[in-house]
């Protein structure tokens, strides 16, 4: 183990501060390196205010929303292997996924419940931020980004709702898109763009599939990047009350 840790390959993979590096000790210097030298952790600053790590202050809601997004991405990629977005195949694919794919039912369940959980956690995160007055200067704009993220989360959940192509999906989406069809002036056009046709059909399925697995995740990742970046730039999370 020692000689392996001393090898050039090992030291080139694990940067200074990695706990897998030879001679790692719990020093302030290494604690800083752990954050700075990790592509994942360096979203964080090296140090945060002491109250910022109190679970009772943040309830971890923002971080959990992000984590649920990752969980949804992982389970969603799994589901994509077994799903074809056409009216004739979609429902059968889901049925076969549940019936004959190893862990298919479990992963689909996780994707579904994590999605509902994410809507709840994003919503609660917003409430938490409001009650702490954390949207006040200099964090006004990050609040706006946050409302956009909430909207995108709802849209992601809603576009995913149609994909199983069962009675629940079809009619829930019918109710939802009928409401959007009442947009003033452009109502019919809005509805046509959303559905890809005059009624919900296989075109709608393809359209919402692309929105769900590609476009909306792409957009939400960009807004999440801005959101996290602004948290840092605006001086970390807001102070205690």
């Amino acid at each position, binding site marked *: 183990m020692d000689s392996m840790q001393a090898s050039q390959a090992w030291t080139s993979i694990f940067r200074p501060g990695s706990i897998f590096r030879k001679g790692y000790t719990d020093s302030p210097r290494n604690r800083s390196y752990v954050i700075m030298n990790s592509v994942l952790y360096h979203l964080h600053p090296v*140090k945060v205010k002491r109250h910022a790590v109190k679970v009772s202050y943040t309830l971890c809601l923002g971080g959990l929303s992000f984590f649920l997004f990752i969980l949804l991405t992982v389970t969603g990629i799994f589901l994509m292997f077994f799903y074809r977005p056409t009216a004739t195949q979609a429902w059968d694919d889901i049925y076969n996924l549940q019936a004959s794919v190893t862990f298919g039912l479990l992963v689909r369940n996780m994707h579904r419940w994590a999605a509902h959980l994410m809507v709840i956690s994003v919503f609660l995160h917003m409430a938490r931020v409001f009650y702490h007055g954390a949207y006040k200067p200099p964090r006004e704009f990050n609040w706006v980004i946050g409302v956009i993220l909430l909207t995108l989360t709802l849209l992601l959940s809603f576009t995913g709702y149609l994909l199983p192509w069962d009675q629940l999906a079809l009619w829930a989406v019918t109710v939802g898109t009928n409401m959007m069809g009442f947009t003033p002036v452009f109502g019919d056009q809005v509805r046509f763009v959303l559905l890809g046709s005059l009624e919900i059909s296989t075109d709608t399925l393809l359209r919402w599939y692309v929105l769900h697995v590609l476009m909306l995740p792409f957009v939400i990742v960009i807004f999440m990047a801005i959101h996290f970046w602004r948290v840092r730039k605006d001086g970390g999370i807001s102070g205690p009350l």
Partner: protein
Amino acid sequence: MAEIPEHLLKRAQEARQRADAQKGGGADEAESAGSEAESSPLSQASSDGPKIPEHLLDRSKSARAQAAGASDRASADVAGGGASAVTTTPVPAASAQPEHTGPGGGTQRLLTVVKSGSIQDVKATPTDKVHVWPHLLVIEFVAALLVTAFTLLFSIFVNAPLLELANVNETPNPSKAPWYFLGLQELLTMFHPMVAGVTIPGMGLFLLMLAPYMDRNPSKKPEDRKFAISLMTVHLMFWAILVLIGSFFRGPGFNFVFPWVDGLFFDL
């Protein structure tokens, strides 16, 4: 003058005294000839200015001696004054202009003191901080683990709904939107669809985005924000109650039912 910090004044005072002392010594040394004049200011510099490492001083001393020897040999036939000219040039600062020398034999002077606030804004105030690793990362890891465990367990015991194949000719009764839109669907029973489906949610989102710009109250203390907190609570409760009614208290024909009487008409 009063704005110059005490310790800097003290340091300048000490440096001035030392320079005066060296001025007297340096004048004596300038009169003495040959290798002695060359080595004594150096040894003094090494004792006063500990910043120059010993081995560097040794190296420069030997190099200088070598140069002196070489030039001595070259200018052997030149008149006697040449030798003293060669020896004095390597140490111009100490012997030629001793009035400008600083504490270490260098030529530094305190010209002015620039206070930190005048050219750069120092915002950092000392705060109680902890390292993200391990304090925050451990919490995040545990939280992520708990949520994963919860989702996994819930998924093992509760299956996601998969009803029969979609059929556009068979409208289920009731037809409900996803739960987070059931508040809007509930509004549909009270208002025109354009108001309930577009205007109210649109305005809601718009006002939500404008919240930080409308709320000009700088305080974050709950006791100073009674109005804002009340308004938000009413707003959140408004949607929560609508969603609850739409989810659990609406049956066939979207008519009001009690779930404990007529059962649930709700799928997640």
